[in-house]
């Protein structure tokens, strides 16, 4: 958001304030509020109303007795979670996997966008951009089927290795160490193209005069990239980082659920899969909700910290 607009907005707000009471303001802008109502209402009904369910975390919840009828057990569910050795392992895995994903997918997307930005031939750009976007468009179940066909013990890569080069098969999908990297790189494969589109879009808004000026100063393409392009997309990068930080304890449930197996629990069992196996499949909603609540609380705390830090640093926050 540029300075002029910010000023404009501030002026508007200060101008409106003395004249209007809240009711007058709503009345004057009733059309705008009406337009927002379907979305706001649907968020309140389908996202906020179910939050009453978070109280399940403090109950020995029985679906039939309901929230009001179930026994209040205080923090017992949290104690159960914290006393479970697999909880801590899952929390650690969630954090490691999502951190590595952020560290690799995030710069990959930037690099991909920078590379695409250097291509002048339009058709080439469109073809490559479309292909990198494809993985984003399919569900994890389908992506999982593809990766199993390619990386499985009897998949494409291993059959090439064993039959053409006579090597031993690599257990990409059942050896805990390679598997963690499969998850991370698969995430890059799925999302880099999508985020690259966001950066490309931001690049398109960079003032062409800046490049001309740089060229006049004798800057090479590389120098232009570093001094003009990157600063030009820094706002977008920060926004994406801000949102991503909130997901540092959510390592991508669907992906892991589709891809993992018992052999790789050690490195791949994350909070959601842990919850599914140890709580939900047993109908222990109290424990499941407690874990979800801990996870949500960590996420929101992280987001708010980076949001206000970013605001203080003058980089704008999320809202």
């Amino acid at each position, binding site marked *: 958001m540029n300075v002029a607009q910010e000023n404009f907005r501030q002026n508007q707000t200060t101008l409106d304030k003395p004249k209007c009471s809240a009711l007058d303001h709503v009345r004057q802008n009733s059309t705008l*509020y009406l337009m927002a109502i379907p979305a706001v209402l*649907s968020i309140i009904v389908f996202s906020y109303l179910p939050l009453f369910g978070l109280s399940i975390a403090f109950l020995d919840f029985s679906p039939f007795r309901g929230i009001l009828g179930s026994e209040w057990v205080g923090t017992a569910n949290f104690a159960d979670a914290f006393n479970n050795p697999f909880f801590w392992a899952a929390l650690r895995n969630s954090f490691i996997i999502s951190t590595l994903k952020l560290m690799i997918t995030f710069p990959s997307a930037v690099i991909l966008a920078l590379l695409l930005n250097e291509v002048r031939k339009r058709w080439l750009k469109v073809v490559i951009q479309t292909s990198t976007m*494809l993985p984003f468009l399919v569900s994890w179940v389908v992506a999982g089927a593809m990766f199993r066909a390619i990386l499985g013990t009897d998949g494409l890569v291993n059959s090439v290795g064993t039959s053409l080069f006579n090597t031993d098969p690599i257990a990409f999908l059942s050896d805990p160490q390679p598997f963690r990297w499969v998850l991370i790189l698969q995430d890059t494969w799925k999302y880099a193209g999508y985020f690259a589109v966001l950066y490309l879009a931001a690049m398109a808004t960079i003032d062409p005069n800046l490049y001309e000026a740089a060229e006049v100063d004798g800057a090479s393409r590389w120098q232009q990239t570093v001094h003009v392009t990157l600063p030009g997309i820094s706002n977008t990068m920060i926004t994406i980082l801000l949102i991503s930080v909130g997901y540092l304890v959510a390592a991508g449930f669907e992906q892991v659920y589709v891809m993992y197996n018992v052999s790789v629990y050690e490195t791949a069992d994350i909070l959601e899969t842990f919850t599914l196996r140890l709580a939900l499949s047993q109908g222990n909603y109290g424990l499941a909700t407690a874990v979800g609540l801990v996870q949500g609380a960590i996420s929101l705390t992280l987001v708010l910290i980076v949001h206000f830090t970013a605001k203080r640093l003058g980089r704008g926050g999320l*809202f």
Partner: protein
Amino acid sequence: MTNITLKPHAIFGLTSGQLLIRLALLVIFALCAYPFFYILSLAVMPYENFISSPVHFGPNGFTLEYFQQIFGSANLQRAFTISVFKTIMGTGLSVVTTVMAGWALSRPGLKYGRLLSALFIVPLYVGGGLIPYFLVIRATGMLNTFWALIIPSMVWPFNFLIARAYFANFPQEIVEAAKVDGASNLMIFKDIVWPTSTPIIATLAVLYGVGHWNDYFWPSFLVQPDLYPITVVLQNLISGNVMASRLGVSGFQSVSPQSFIAAVAAVLIIPVLVAYPLFQRYVVKGILVGSLKG
């Protein structure tokens, strides 16, 4: 390495830098697109050919047998229709509500715009859980109706934030000029904003469309089997929860799992492959402004 100097303008009229960039992009292209090509190859390759040789890079022979097996079932045909309706109507509804809210709440001077927008942050990270969600949807009377497939997931917070950021950059001068001409807020939206916002509309259509098409968990929870979209059946099939034999696929014994699963995956992929390019060029423009902070 031999020491062949890559002279500027030497190869295909490209500088060495350009050449490296294109090589890198070629590798990226292959990595992204090949898995799609491979799974589609498996889907059209006769199974005998698949097992007769250990390595395949592309289709060896051609057959549509597996697709015929999938679509031979009347149930799958109906499920497919439901999926199509769900995707089209759900996307239409989602896009319209999101665009309206994104526009309205990004208006400078709208006192509670910021507050209402902040409402969309929490749901990004916290949910209430399965049973409370079910109870809320039941209370609305939508349970086991077609509406349960499209209304509860009508607005995604992330998409709203994209839309709002996009409209925050909408040139305010145009709006002011229209106001001077006596246009109402509704007219401004209908006649000026909507027609000029194709990029964000296309972007949201892709994001919501993909979401609605791929959605399979909630439908199996919120509606009864006569309303299952095809994804519920197919995704369960891929993830191994349902045996092909139980789908009433005729002559299932001869259906080989790899080929059949590949064909199922293809059925899920192909509509996306067909539809996406239609939106692609708008998407780039749409995310363009949307990604800038508002």
